[in-house]
């Protein structure tokens, strides 16, 4: 009886949590479909009386939304590729090769992760100006890499530590080079870890706001976060309908990626958590 009661209570609590978390998202989608006139009615209506896709059309045709979207896609993809490549090779080195200062290096990498990223903005900005990268997507790729890489290294390191060394030795004896063994044997085994890392990095680069705001202020290079903000939110007015439509479209790539890779993600975090 008590176990049944606790199940019921657990269910109520869980569903309440789900509702609290999901409500803003649902509201966002519904708002983006309402005509402007319905937005500020009192009392507010939950479902739109009339469904319109006008806001989406305006965003896609009359504003630079698509350019921001492409910028964000390039930015997130290149950051992810860079972080995964460097992270995987670095983690492999930390796990497999014996050299002086290996553990210290790994510790230092983690230490950089503990630093608040806000502290780094101004120095990074000045550096970017010096090397002529200010106002470019490349500056953001570099900035995001600096704070994604430590996490990637640690997650992938614990993954690779779990791959038996014999597998790689076998590949070497079978005629593979070091890199050959890495690609043929290590990478496929570390795939869940690599996908977790890639997702983490992609989401971070896709959603990041502060660095994008400071390092890039030309309309050509703005990513979605600052672009949409700049376009739709002014000191005098917030264009809620367009903002909600933009938010929905910004979420779609992440939702698609999540849906496909969800099982890898949970496996990845699980394994990383236990071993790390």
């Amino acid at each position, binding site marked *: 009886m008590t176990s049944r009661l606790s199940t019921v209570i657990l269910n109520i609590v869980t569903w309440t949590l789900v509702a609290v978390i999901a409500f803003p998202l649902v509201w966002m989608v519904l708002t983006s479909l309402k005509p402007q006139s319905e937005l500020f009615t009192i009392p507010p209506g939950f479902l739109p009386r009339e469904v319109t896709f006008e806001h989406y059309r305006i965003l896609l045709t009359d504003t630079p939304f698509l350019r921001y979207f492409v910028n964000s896609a390039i930015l997130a993809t290149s950051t992810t590729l860079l972080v995964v490549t460097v992270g995987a090779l670095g983690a492999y080195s930390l796990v497999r090769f014996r050299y002086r200062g290996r553990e210290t290096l790994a510790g230092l990498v983690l230490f950089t992760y503990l630093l608040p990223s806000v502290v780094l903005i101004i120095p990074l900005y000045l550096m970017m100006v010096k090397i002529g990268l200010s106002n470019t997507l490349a500056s953001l790729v570099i900035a995001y890499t600096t704070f994604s890489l430590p996490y990637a290294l640690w997650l992938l390191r614990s993954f690779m530590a779990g791959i038996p060394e014999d597998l790689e030795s*076998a590949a070497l004896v079978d005629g593979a080079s070091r890199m050959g063994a890495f690609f043929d044997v290590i990478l496929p*085994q570390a795939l869940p870890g690599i996908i977790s890392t890639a997702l983490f990095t992609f989401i971070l680069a896709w959603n990041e706001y502060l660095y994008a705001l400071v390092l890039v202020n030309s309309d050509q290079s703005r990513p979605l976060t600052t672009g949409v903000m700049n376009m739709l939110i002014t000191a005098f007015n917030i264009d809620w309908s367009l903002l909600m439509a933009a938010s929905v479209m910004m979420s779609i790539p992440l939702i698609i990626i999540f849906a496909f890779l969800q099982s890898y993600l949970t496996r990845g975090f699980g394994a990383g958590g236990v071993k790390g």
Partner: protein
Amino acid sequence: MVNVIFNKVQKAFGSVVAIPDLNLEIGSGEFVSLLGPSGCGKTTTLRMLAGLEQPTGGEIRIGERAVNNVAPGERDIAMVFQSYALYPHMTVGQNIAYPLKKRGVPKSEHPARIKAVADLLQLGPLLERRPKQLSGGQQQRVALGRALVRDPKVFLLDEPLSNLDAKLRAHMRTELIELHRRLGKTMVYVTHDQLEAMTMSTRIAVMHQGHLQQFATPSEIYNRPANTFVASFIGTPSMTLVEAEIEMAEGAAFLLVGGQRFPLPPSLVMADSRHRRPITLGVRPEDISIASGEAARASVKLVEPTGHESIVTLDLGGAHFVMRAAGDVALRLGEAVPIALRIDRLHFFDRESGQRINTDAERPAEFRSIAR
């Protein structure tokens, strides 16, 4: 077929010296076991031969070629790992094909060669499966298949049977012996299991703490162990090692052990009589038996029947001997029984160095050294 030579090979991990100085020559087509307890350096030796560890000194030769600086993949060797090390994301067929692919064997040749190996090891129906869908014995055969497919010069096997159950292990042992006979390839086999080493090898290299203790045929190792380590490591139950003395008196030699005096054969008598030498005496369980008639008496401490035989522990004046007796032997604890030693099968070792100082009866010349 090629031979393998370790010439003054050293290996240190940081300040820890794993192999101080190894000299070993493995003949062409031999099946050599590296045998020893864990930590004796046998796996390190094998991994150096494979190129997975770099020696810190000396030279390793495979055939005519010094291979110290040759990558593992270019040494023309194949290796079977204790963990089998099958690539989990590849099917059995892909696992076996991998060495062919990596060595640039034309793709058109792959199917025929995979089939040949699959037939030899009865892997045919398993080619499409993945390693985790196989039993331990099947995984073992796939690992062997991956080693065999390329026709290498030397096979390296690192405790390949240790993860199998006892029955399968015995079966795979005979299969490996058969395989070696059929292929005639040089094989180097690492094991801590003396039964495997004794049954399969043409020669055994017994190692302890990085040092080669003895390198000889199984029967030589068993019958003429070079020192007390080899003597006690080989044989189940192990050889009894007790403190004893050899005495030369009045033109005859005697063995003094447990307060008893056993005459040694006249052939061992030395001109220099009146000499005592402290030794470690080694007696195999089958070289001590219950005597008929008058003889030294030992009391029965323990009887362990195993069915076809009984292992009996005897106390002879404080020295404990292990005896192999018939399964139905009727002995009571504490009973004093007359015992006989097979004098010609005794082993004498220097008390300090532990080195063997006698030889068998057919070579008495060396035995004289006991009366230096």
